[in-house]
């Protein structure tokens, strides 16, 4: 009872509970959050998808597309044409075909000045045709796109998608009901062509060191309302995968994803999320595991910030877009979808999008999909994530309380002789707890005890600022380091992949020595204050990041939070080494390598171990390189975020771990 009304600082029961059980509470919160999150994959915790936008009216009309023969004819012609040009796009043929269908056809040139090497550039060519809506005034449009893949490209071919698109263009041009212009776009060089086209369409200002020279478009068709990207490697597919993850983890409106699933269902085309069909009995334990697998797979994809298809680049411009990807699994005799079915699905999609009166704004932009017809909205997953993330805040709070307590104790120690002990009576009640906390907070640095306490507090903050500044500058150095590394590597004829990887490794190793250099030059900073600051910073990063790229924030929280709880300087050498190893395991560079390697192992399970190891090394180097290049070309911010936010946090943690453990407080 008395604790509630006690005005004394050390007597706050909340802070006492916090100080007494901080570790347990943190672990408990983390575990509750994690289990809660995993449970969200079960159908009792998530919800059935529904259409929020009434204007879409999906599947209200019967599909009339009958152009399969036409599509196959286009496919044959295109294949013939492709044989003539093994490495470039047959844009003359495409342009001629689109023009003959009555579309306003244009080409678009772009150039990439490779940022990792001087004087290295690639050129490309997109072809697009605009079907002008009858009676329309070209104030709105829908995009149907397909990437062109030359036979020499490492990806599967995409000729059937282009053939289907042309057949659809033919069919659409005969219809009168269009209210929006439809742009048929064939891009070259995968996402590069799409990025150039989009930048040009939106009249972006040229970058100051021009990385992507995106050229000029001759004609446009107003704001793009939605886009569907096609990737169909063969004219018969076993199922259709609807991909939705975009650049920097942005997602399209859930209504658009639902629309595709609904129309696939209507046309009896098997449809999947992350290439995983729905479980037959989702309410069972195996159903939960199945959905959990799907959920984690989409989280992993979203966290990379790399779009899972060309659609992902539209999201930045506020355009909802998905990729319809035809997949073929070896299972013979299964039901197959032909170009006719796919054409019907796309016809329905375009007609629904044509019905839209307003741009997508209803429904959800933040969601996770555990199955094709289930979703977890932001309101459902955020509390679980909040529980996980709040262990960081809790830790910071307890550290703050304990440092305050320490200051008070020091204050009490110094003028103990001349201060009358007014609160003696009240203190007796909480005496037991107080001694407990005193033991726990090994406060009172011997050398600061001689100086005035308030000065010690200020000094501590100043030195904290210095430490933080140094660590963040290291992050800034790391953000432009790859360019330097690759330029330097080019001098000694090293491949850009290798030079960036080696350079980053070297920088990381050098930065490992930063704490010892810091402790030598900056003194008077208790590790508690640093750890408190770093926990707060990490909490801010993950909570702010969860609204930008939820999956990335989730993974960072899941990986960093337990380590952050554990990190504290110890006198035991073994424990210290173990903790250092743990910290090294969550270094951003190590994390990148780990995720890339796990991905490689999952994708190539049948390789011999040595080859797999080599592959892991290559894949890790590539992952690093791609993240750097993507940040230059597409504005992917995973690499900058890792450099500017995560690396400083890690360095500060490393600093905390290597600081001297403080001797226990001398009891007054």
């Amino acid at each position, binding site marked *: 009872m008395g604790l509630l009304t006690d005005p004394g600082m050390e007597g706050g029961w909340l802070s006492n509970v916090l100080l007494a059980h901080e570790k347990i509470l943190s672990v408990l919160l983390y575990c509750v959050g994690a289990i809660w999150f995993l449970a969200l994959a079960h159908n009792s915790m998530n919800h059935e998808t529904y259409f929020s936008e009434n204007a879409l009216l999906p599947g209200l009309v019967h599909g009339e597309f009958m152009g399969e023969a036409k599509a196959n004819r286009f496919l044959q012609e295109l294949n013939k044409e492709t044989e003539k040009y093994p490495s470039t796009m047959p844009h003359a043929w495409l342009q001629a075909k689109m023009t003959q269908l*009555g579309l306003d056809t244009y080409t678009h040139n772009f150039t990439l000045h490779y940022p990792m090497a001087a004087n290295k550039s690639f050129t490309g060519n997109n072809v697009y045709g605009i079907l002008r809506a009858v*009676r329309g*005034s*070209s*104030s709105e449009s829908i995009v149907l796109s397909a990437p062109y893949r030359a036979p020499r490209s490492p990806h599967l071919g995409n000729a059937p998608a282009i053939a289907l698109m042309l057949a659809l263009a033919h069919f659409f041009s005969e219809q009168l009901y269009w209210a929006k212009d439809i742009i048929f776009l064939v891009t070259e060089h995968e996402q590069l062509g799409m990025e150039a086209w989009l930048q040009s369409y*939106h009249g972006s200002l040229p970058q100051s060191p021009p990385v992507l020279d995106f050229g000029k478009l001759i004609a446009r068709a107003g704001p793009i309302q939605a886009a569907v990207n096609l990737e169909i490697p063969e004219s018969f597919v076993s199922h259709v995968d609807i991909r939705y993850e975009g650049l920097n983890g942005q997602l399209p409106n859930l209504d658009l994803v639902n629309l595709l699933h609904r129309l696939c269902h209507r046309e009896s085309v098997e449809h999947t999320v992350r290439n995983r069909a729905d479980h037959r009995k989702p309410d069972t334990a195996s159903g939960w595991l199945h959905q959990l697998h799907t959920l984690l797979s989409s989280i992993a994809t979203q966290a990379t910030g790399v779009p899972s298809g060309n659609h992902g680049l539209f999201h930045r411009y506020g355009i909802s877009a998905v990729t319809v990807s035809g997949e073929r699994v070896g299972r013979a005799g299964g039901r197959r979808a032909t170009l006719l079915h796919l054409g019907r699905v796309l016809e329905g999609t375009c007609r629904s999008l044509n019905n839209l009166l*307003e*741009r997508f704004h209803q429904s959800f932009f933040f969601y996770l999909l555990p199955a094709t017809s289930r979703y977890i909205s932001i309101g459902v997953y955020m509390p679980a994530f909040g529980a996980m993330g709040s262990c960081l805040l809790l830790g910071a709070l307890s550290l703050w309380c304990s440092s305050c307590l320490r200051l008070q104790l020091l204050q009490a120690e110094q003028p103990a002789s001349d201060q009358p002990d007014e609160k003696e009576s009240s203190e007796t009640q909480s005496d037991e707890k107080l001694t407990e906390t005193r033991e726990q907070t090994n406060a009172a640095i011997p050398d600061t005890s001689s100086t005035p306490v308030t000065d010690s507090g200020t000094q501590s903050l100043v030195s904290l600022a210095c430490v933080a500044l140094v660590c963040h500058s290291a992050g800034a150095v790391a953000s432009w380091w790859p360019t330097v590394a690759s330029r330097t590597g080019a001098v000694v004829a090293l491949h850009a992949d290798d030079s960036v990887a080696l350079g980053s490794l070297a920088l990381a190793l050098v930065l490992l020595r930063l704490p010892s250099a810091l402790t030598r030059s900056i003194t008077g900073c208790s590790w508690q204050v640093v750890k408190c600051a770093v926990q707060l910073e990490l909490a801010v990063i993950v909570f702010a990041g969860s609204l930008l790229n939820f999956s990335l924030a989730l993974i960072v929280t899941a990986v960093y939070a337990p380590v952050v709880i554990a990190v504290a300087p110890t006198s035991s050498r073994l424990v210290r080494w173990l903790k250092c190893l743990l910290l090294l395991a969550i270094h951003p560079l190590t994390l990148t390598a780990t995720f890339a390697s796990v991905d490689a192992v999952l994708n190539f399970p049948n390789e011999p171990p040595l080859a797999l190891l080599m592959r892991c090394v290559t894949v890790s180097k590539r992952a690093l390189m791609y993240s750097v290049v993507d940040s230059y070309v597409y504005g992917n911010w995973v690499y900058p975020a890792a450099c500017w936010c995560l690396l400083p946090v890690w360095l500060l943690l490393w600093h905390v771990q290597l600081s001297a453990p403080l001797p226990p407080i001398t009891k007054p």
Partner: protein
Amino acid sequence: MLISINNMAVVLRLTALLILLVSFSSFAYSTSNNNAAIDSKCSKETQTDESSFSEELLVRPLPSGHVHSHFEFTTKWSNPSIKSSLESYHDLKLSHYDLFPRALGEVVEKYHVRELHLTLTQGLWRHHKWGYPVADAPPGATLWVWFNPAPKNVLDDAWRDLVNALSGLFCASLNFIDGSNTASPELSYRPSGLAQPWYASNSSYLRVAALARENVCTENLTPWKKLLPCDTKAGLASVLYPSPLYSAHYHSLGVHLRPSCQDPGACTRPQLELVLSVSLVQQRLQEGRQDFTLRGLYSSPIFSVCPMAYKSMLYVDVTGNEDGRTFSLSPPPSEVVTRGAGLGSASHRVFAVYDLQETLSSSRDALNVAARYAKRHTYAHVSGPPLVATRYIAGYGQEGGSIRVVLSNSGSEDLSVVYLELLPWYLRLYLHTAHETGQGERYLSQFVGARDREQGWVYEAVVRVPARGSTELSLPFTRALLKWLEYPPDANHGFYLPAATVSAVLPTARNITAATAADTGSLLDKLSVREGEQLVRLYTETLLVTLPTPDFSMPYNVICLACTVVALAFGPIHNITTKRLVLKKIQPSESFASTVSGKVRRLFGFKVDVGAEADEGAAKTDTCAAGTDAAPVAT
């Protein structure tokens, strides 16, 4: 603005004046020269009240595979009263209506109108594919009116009343025109009819407004048809069925009233001219051929002429097809008219002319002109007209952006182009960063800044577009936040910006479809363009711009939340305000539960210590306080 003191500015200023002059030079008559002539004629014409009506149809197959049809119904009216009011710039006094529609005449009379142009259009005229139209019109509704000289406030009132009257007359939402979307631009809209320089150069008598969002449908067509002397009972208007009309790629209803000359050349006898027009662009490929018949185009052949019309004509543009190799016409035309300065010249035009009165009187069948093409139509690159403008919004997100217009000139001479932008106030323009790219120069001829909810932006600039090149203008803007009631029901659809106007004087008449002189008698006269410089006015696309839109479900949420709070707060507040606070001594009476628990404890030999008893006592008082409810314990 940017080039203020160099020579270019002077040159552009001169070209601006040139455009101003060219646009009305052919009909700017001088009263001082012709005063005597007018006086001498006046005596003869005092009793004459002439009015005439003609109906004409032009069919032009376009190289893109489309067919352009342009119906024109012209009513001309001259009498001494009209003549004197036109010459003295006074309000018209119309009486004894004959062919002229009274519904429109009364509106014109009442609101000091001298010249009125209204277009209601659905679809965008694609200049690069279809060339220039007979009269260009932007998507939506556009109204521009020249009033008789009067003070500004009188004209403002007249304009406000006029748009409401026209709104009722044509069933269009013209009543949404108010001060915030009205402008009086300097150069772009000169009088197209008779006007003296002092009047034509004073744009304060002009009002221009455009509604880009206006949808045009049968409810506009029906009142428009009623202005015709024969309605749709007979004549060319009887083929204007709604369904082929509204499935066309482009259709535009026009009402153009202007003072014109009865006598070409001298221009001494002014008359009132009303042109009602319909423009259609259709595509009816049959078996891959561009074949067309009147029945195919309008779902009906022409079976009658309007008996009031002194002239009922059908023209088919056969320029480049004089030998009939590309397509052949059946039945053959009554006459083939060749205009212009000879084969190969820029003004060379050939028309197959069907005199409908003659044709329909000689045979009992309806006239169904059919064109049969020799070859299948192949889509190919169509070489567009010399000056084309495209406009788009650059940028993304909800904060800023810029309006960009690309003016391309494929001709061999530099062009000076007047570019007019009328923008709503909720865009905030930034003039200091407005710029042009390419080799073009810019001279800002008029700029009116916007005032919130009162006045829109007017940006009129003269731009030089280099030969075989293009100039891109960029107008950066940010978006304003509207009040929540100012959003339309479909707020997330976006807001339409009206089309920009681009006017220029082209050096040759090669791509011009129709001339805009005031002394032209009929459609055929307009189509027979003269050699030399020609004025074109074209419109760009309308733009859709999204404004930052609040979540409109938010008020609902707030209402729910507020109601919950009120409901929750009501009980306690009601209790506090209606019940008395009485201090009550609490007897330390034992409740049933505590006696039982105490007995049980004693039974099992627990020591009941003092602290616990005290706690129990506190708990008891708490439960007491809660239980009695009416007696809060004041401590």
